């Protein structure tokens, strides 16, 4: 009995935090995400881009990992550890911006489809079907190779391919909320449709969208590095993780460490984001907890 009264005393946010902080995996994941975010933000302070990241030093080319170069050096004598650290900035920003693009477009369209229904919904949902009928990776490749190779086009391509999922999730969430009494009440007091959607409906649909966004950042980082690996991502000499992998592939026979470490960086980042996303899902929506 005491337990329940104590629970009730906590606010909604505190309750979610309580659930979240009890999940060890989620806490470890979030900690790693924080560290990675720190590295990405302060990459400029930690490293000097021109000398340490893209500066060539042919005298020290192709060295195996040692105390001086933790992850070894590449074919131009650049320290791979430094390049991976700085690459955090590229890979993470691509992931974040791409998902934001998908989020804004997808949530808007999904909310419109769910709220208004009718012909508008039909058009939006059928277009979504068409967009998602093409495999994501193929669509992204087509978009980047047509628009040209640059970091912005990479973000746009990965962002567009994540639109359909946001549309579907938002629409489904809006449908469950649309007929609630408070929506009817806000209609009755004469609020505009835009206000109803953004102030009353969307805030009540947030949890599935937040979870989806977190997990999407993880897969966007993988998609972005895959495109860079194919030579369709961030142009050289920027140390994006996928480009590092594709550079290392040429030396895979004798210098396998060049392939090992960038992939490890991708894996740890994505793993941390996935653990955080799973934890968020469990704490935001206890019904889903398996």
């Amino acid at each position, binding site marked *: 009995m005491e337990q329940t009264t104590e629970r009730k005393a906590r606010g909604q946010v505190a309750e979610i935090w309580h659930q979240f902080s009890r999940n060890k995996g989620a806490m470890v994941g979030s900690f790693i995400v924080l560290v990675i975010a720190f590295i990405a933000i302060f990459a400029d302070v930690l490293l000097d881009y021109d000398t340490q990241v893209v500066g060539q030093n042919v005298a020290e080319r192709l060295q195996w990992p040692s105390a001086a170069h933790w992850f070894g050096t590449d074919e131009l004598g650049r320290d791979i550890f430094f390049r991976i650290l700085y690459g955090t900035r590229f890979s993470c920003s691509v992931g974040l911006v791409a998902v934001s693009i998908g989020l804004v477009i997808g949530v808007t369209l999904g909310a419109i489809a769910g709220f208004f229904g009718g012909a508008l919904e039909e058009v939006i949902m059928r277009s979504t079907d068409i967009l998602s*009928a093409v495999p994501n990776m193929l669509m992204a490749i*087509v978009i980047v190779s047509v628009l040209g190779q640059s970091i912005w086009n990479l973000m746009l391509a990965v962002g567009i391919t994540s639109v359909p999922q946001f549309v579907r999730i938002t629409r489904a969430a809006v449908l469950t909320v649309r007929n609630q009494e408070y929506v009817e009440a806000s209609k009755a007091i004469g609020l505009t449709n835009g206000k109803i959607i953004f102030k009353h409906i969307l805030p009540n649909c947030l949890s599935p969208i937040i979870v989806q966004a977190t997990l999407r950042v993880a897969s966007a980082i993988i998609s972005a590095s895959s495109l860079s690996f*194919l030579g369709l991502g961030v142009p050289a000499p920027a140390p994006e993780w996928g480009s590092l992998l594709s550079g290392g*592939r040429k030396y*895979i026979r004798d210098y396998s460490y060049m392939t*090992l470490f960038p992939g490890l960086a991708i894996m740890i980042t994505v*793993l941390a984001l996935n653990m955080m996303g799973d934890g968020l899902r469990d704490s935001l929506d206890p019904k889903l907890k398996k």
Partner: protein
Amino acid sequence: MIPVIIGVSFLVFFIMDLAPGDAVDLMAPEGATAEDLMAIRHDLGLDQPVVIRYIRYMGGMLHGDMGISYVSKTDVFDTYMQKLPATIKLSFASILVSVLLSVPLGIYSATRQGTIQDNISMVLAMIGLSMPNFWLGLLLIIAFSLHIHLFPSGGDQTLSAIVLPALTIGTGLMATLTRTTRSSMLDVLKQEYLRTARAKGIPEKTVVMSHALRNALIPIITIIGTQLAGVLGGSVLTETVFAWPGVGRLIVDSLNMRDTPLVTGSIIMTTILLSIVLLLVDLLYAVVDPRIKAQYIIKRGRKKRG
């Protein structure tokens, strides 16, 4: 399905048109004059506006003509069909790897929910989910092809060449399938009919393997179907890493050559293939779960009466 195909063709055709430069710029012989280029464009119909080209293209599609590649001058449909067997072979091999590894692991985890074994396999599944697939392929090449000379690192000449790419894709798919199997089994294991089965004295193994698994199959089949559709779409990266001559690489190569008919045709064919696989999965539900078939029959019966 047909509206989706028309939509996809429209989308791809117009995106391709946004690109600066066309196939002629890339394939023209050295020293060709502007008039030569114009002549080639006229031959290919590239001097027409995009709407006209699209209408012509769709007109061809109506009687099954997917056009001719700008670059190799071969029929698009034939070129696609040449590459398809390799992709199909790889897809089924990968799905086999994934199913053989994930379903037992998922069942094992579900029957030991909350134990260390369960946690370890879930962490492993999570790691598998987070690994970039092409990186895993590269690691496999380092381990099994460069260090121990067990399998070739690329091509499809020998039978053993399929092992590494199939392992790469299969283990990539494993994470999702293991998690689905586990959660679906967990749902079923709580049902009362399992308690009844145990009470009847049926050995635990039979309870899990036939009574529980059969009822947990629907979500598992859904995931296998979606995954199959996904790999059939061409695993561009794995095909690139292992120099596998499949559909994925065909599309990337023709994209680089700005070969619009080949790109559009291949993507349309891929979309059709995916829709068919997903349709088959839907039909399979009825086979696995008689309740679904019964529902369908009841609905149809009602319609007839009404």
